[in-house]
């Protein structure tokens, strides 16, 4: 905070210096507009959603408005000052200065309020047999909101000895503060969902340094960024009541079936983290032979709470060339790897102390689903097929190779004839490699001197898109639960599932079109349409589909010099079809 205030003060001082210092210089100019006014807002019924980005604390009260858009300079310097003040939490300020000699600086500050909804939890009640669900909202009248604040400053220093040479030092400071609704649940007791107000005081600070320049035909760019994220608010805590039989309420041995019970613990914890990134790029202008570009990126992110780290390493190559005055070819290749530390999950033994039906060890090793190697190639051909007519074709081929598509998990398979048996099937055992082929064709054309249109068709074919493997639909067991007796382990374990679930397509078609035409000197029309059809018919239990249609029409007309109309209409429909598997009751 101290750094941000220091930079804000520097910005204001710099602003004063430029304004005062330049006022008397020869050739000095200043132009712009300034507004001063007031506004008063009132609401009826529920203002939270309709005024989602309105500071409701400033309603029903007269508020001052200030707006300034100022642009000025001298022969050697330009500066701009922009201010938009609506209320204490809704404001924007920008200041920039650019000197002919060496230095330019930009400072931006903005804040706004985002009102959040309050889930009243009233659906969370019901009783079926001995199973009971309750809800308690400990803050029933709570109004939740988040105030966003961001300060950003960049100082650029030119390096005259280097073409396009520049060093940039930048800093950004983001704040999210307010209250949100935090909920958690007691279960394997009477199911009890409780809600509280959770204070949020999050700060993200980003430090950046960029160096760029060109030597002859070669351009270089390197940037470094360090991001620190902390939440200074206290983590909420919850008392988990003693676990007991969810039907009859008896304590029995239920606490041994839970990781914790009869204890106060934190929940809704935010993971403080930091990220460091290095990015280096080089581009060679090979004149008639085209442009060649390469880059290397490395980032590291660490979760402070757990020490878990993730690394991202990438290399990219690109080549663009004009094959002829009418034809342009671009080729790109990208490869990257994401690797996140494994995490060993050490759990209490299930029904510890029960040598017959329990004492099971559920420890597991979490292999991150972020882990992957990605290889992607793009070829793009642009061809001027006639006067004002362009055709583009793009082909993308991508391979995403993961050790585990979903977070590694263990599915417990039960043998009906042998209730004590179980088999662990890790999600790493499934095929986790996605291959994507995408073809895109685009045609642009002028309609004489009065209009233009374009049409794009995209077809994507995906082998093994992202999915949740064996996520749904269970194998049927005769007699449901009675065959296994009251202590059958099947009550408490995930039954063998076999159905994959996803909302990602194996085949996707998309057509987009846009056109504009000037009907007369006073009337013009714009139209657009998007049509898409996605389907996945390669899953083992159902076919997923998604259809989208979005047409739109805009009309601009000026019936007279004094009157101007703009009218628009947009319609959008998205329809998805998926499968829902009803589970078998087993507990």
């Amino acid at each position, binding site marked *: 905070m101290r750094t941000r205030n220091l930079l804000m003060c520097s910005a204001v001082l710099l602003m004063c210096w430029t304004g005062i210092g330049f006022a008397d210089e020869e050739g000095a100019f200043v132009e712009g507009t300034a507004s001063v006014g007031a506004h008063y807002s009132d609401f009826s019924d529920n203002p939270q959603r309709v005024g989602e980005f309105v500071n409701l604390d400033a309603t029903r009260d007269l508020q001052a408005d200030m707006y300034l858009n100022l642009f000025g300079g001298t022969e050697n310097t330009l500066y701009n000052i922009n201010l938009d003040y609506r209320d204490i939490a809704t404001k924007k300020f920008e200041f920039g200065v650019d000197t002919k000699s060496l230095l330019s600086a930009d400072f931006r500050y903005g804040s706004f309020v985002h009102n959040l909804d309050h889930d009243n939890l009233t659906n969370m009640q019901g009783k079926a047999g001995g199973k*009971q669900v*309750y809800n308690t909202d400990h803050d029933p009248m709570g109004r939740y909101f988040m105030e966003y604040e961001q300060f950003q400053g960049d100082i650029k220093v030119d390096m005259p000895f280097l073409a396009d040479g520049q060093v940039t030092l930048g800093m950004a400071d983001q704040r999210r503060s307010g209250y949100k609704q*935090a909920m958690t649940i007691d279960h394997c007791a009477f199911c009890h969902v409780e809600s509280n107000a959770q204070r949020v005081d999050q700060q993200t600070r980003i430090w950046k340094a960029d160096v760029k320049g060109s030597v002859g035909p070669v351009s270089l760019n390197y940037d470094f960024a360090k991001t620190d994220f902390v939440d200074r608010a206290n983590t909420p805590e919850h008392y988990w009541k003693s676990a007991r039989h969810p039907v009859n309420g008896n304590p029995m041995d239920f606490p041994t079936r839970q990781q914790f019970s009869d204890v106060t613990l934190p929940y809704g914890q935010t993971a403080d983290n930091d990220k460091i990134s290095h990015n280096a790029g080089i581009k060679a202008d090979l004149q008639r032979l085209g442009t060649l570009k390469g880059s290397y990126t490395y980032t590291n992110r660490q979760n402070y709470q757990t020490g*878990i780290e993730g690394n991202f390493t990438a290399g990219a190559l690109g080549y663009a060339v004009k094959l002829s005055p009418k034809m342009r070819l671009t080729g790109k290749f990208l490869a990257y790897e994401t690797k996140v530390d494994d995490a060993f999950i050490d759990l209490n033994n299930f029904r510890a102390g029960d040598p017959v039906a329990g004492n099971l060890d559920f420890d597991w090793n979490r292999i991150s689903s*972020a882990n992957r190697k990605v290889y992607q190639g793009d070829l793009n051909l642009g061809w001027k097929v006639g006067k004002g007519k362009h055709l583009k074709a793009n082909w993308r081929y991508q391979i995403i190779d993961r050790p585990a598509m979903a977070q590694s998990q263990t599915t417990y398979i039960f043998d009906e004839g042998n209730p004590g048996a179980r088999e662990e099937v890790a999600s790493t055992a499934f095929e986790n490699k996605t291959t994507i082929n995408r073809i895109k064709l685009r045609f642009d054309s002028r309609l004489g001197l009065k209009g233009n249109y374009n049409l794009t068709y995209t077809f994507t074919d995906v082998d093994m898109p992202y999915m*949740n493997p064996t996520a749904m639909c269970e194998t049927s067991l005769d007699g449901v639960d009675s065959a296994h007796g009251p202590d059958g382990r099947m009550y408490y374990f*995930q039954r063998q599932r076999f*159905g994959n679930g*996803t909302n990602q397509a194996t085949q996707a078609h998309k057509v987009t079109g846009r056109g504009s035409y000037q009907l007369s000197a006073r009337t013009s029309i714009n139209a657009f349409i998007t049509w898409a059809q996605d389907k996945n018919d390669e899953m083992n239990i159902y076919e997923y589909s998604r259809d989208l249609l979005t047409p739109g029409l805009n009309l601009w007309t000026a019936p007279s010099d004094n009157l101007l109309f703009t009218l628009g209409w947009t319609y959008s429909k998205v329809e998805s079809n998926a499968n829902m598997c009803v589970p078998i009751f087993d507990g």
Partner: protein
Amino acid sequence: MDRRIFNWAFSDNRLLLWGLALCLILSTGAAAQSPADFVGTETCLDCHDDMAADFSRTVHGQLGDYQYPGLANGCEACHGPGAKHVDSEDPEDILNPTAEMGNDGTDLCLDCHRTGHTLNWEMSTHAESDVSCLSCHKLHDNSSSRALLAGTEEDVCFTCHMDTQSKFQLPSHHPVREGFMTCSSCHDTHGNQFQEIADGETSRDACLVCHQQHAGPFVFEHSPVMEDCTICHDVHGSVANNLLRQNEPFICLQCHQPHFHSILTGAEGDYSTPPGVVAQDPNYDGLSGTSHADSMKRVMLTKCTQCHQSIHGSDLPSQSISGQGRALNR
């Protein structure tokens, strides 16, 4: 490759020849111009006086001499040597980059704007779609925008991306129409080596710039969060709250099955925790509710994140051992 050919091509002497050949190719791009061909900006403005005040107030009008790559600065940096045009006053004798160079003269812009934001331009989606610099920037008569944008950022982007503009009118949207975000908050219009979006190695990283609380890396993950935020979120706007592509529980049920409790027939009437349970544990005291036949369905099939609130990942194990702590309840 035949080893003899390889040896021939890459022997010490011939490497030098390859280098010289490359230099020759690179040098052929520069047109032969002499200082005498240039007249200077002041001369241009003698006739084009309508540009005079305005041009000096733009970033281009303020550049230092060293910032121009060629022999000239000012007008002639883009329009070429003006001596012939000054003599003849014929528009044909001066370069009009928009009309005479490909793609509205974008290549000319790239002579100076080679690196930094434009390092990736040639390989960007915009470049591949024939979007030129002048599609979004206005160089003359535009002294009020230091970035020389042809309008507000939204005006410029929504000229082509009209369907996206309409999505910002949906009940759940990022605050672009309210003016608190702009397209460039997420998108790098000049090209990013990885995606069509800014500040990210993956699309996920672009979201994390403002939503760091979901960055992790977490012990207990929700795998689509690690894959791609757009599996669940329609980032420009949606009907469902929190930019969800469909409302809960249906967005969830595409990849998961509901809990088995959802098939239970609910009792009718009011209920409360049994006295025997309260006697054993007073923390259960005072809990009550009203139940209907479909109450358990309402509990289980209305909004999954009422219980699975840490849906973006957590470092804290959930309560159930048999669920291996993965339920994202904490």
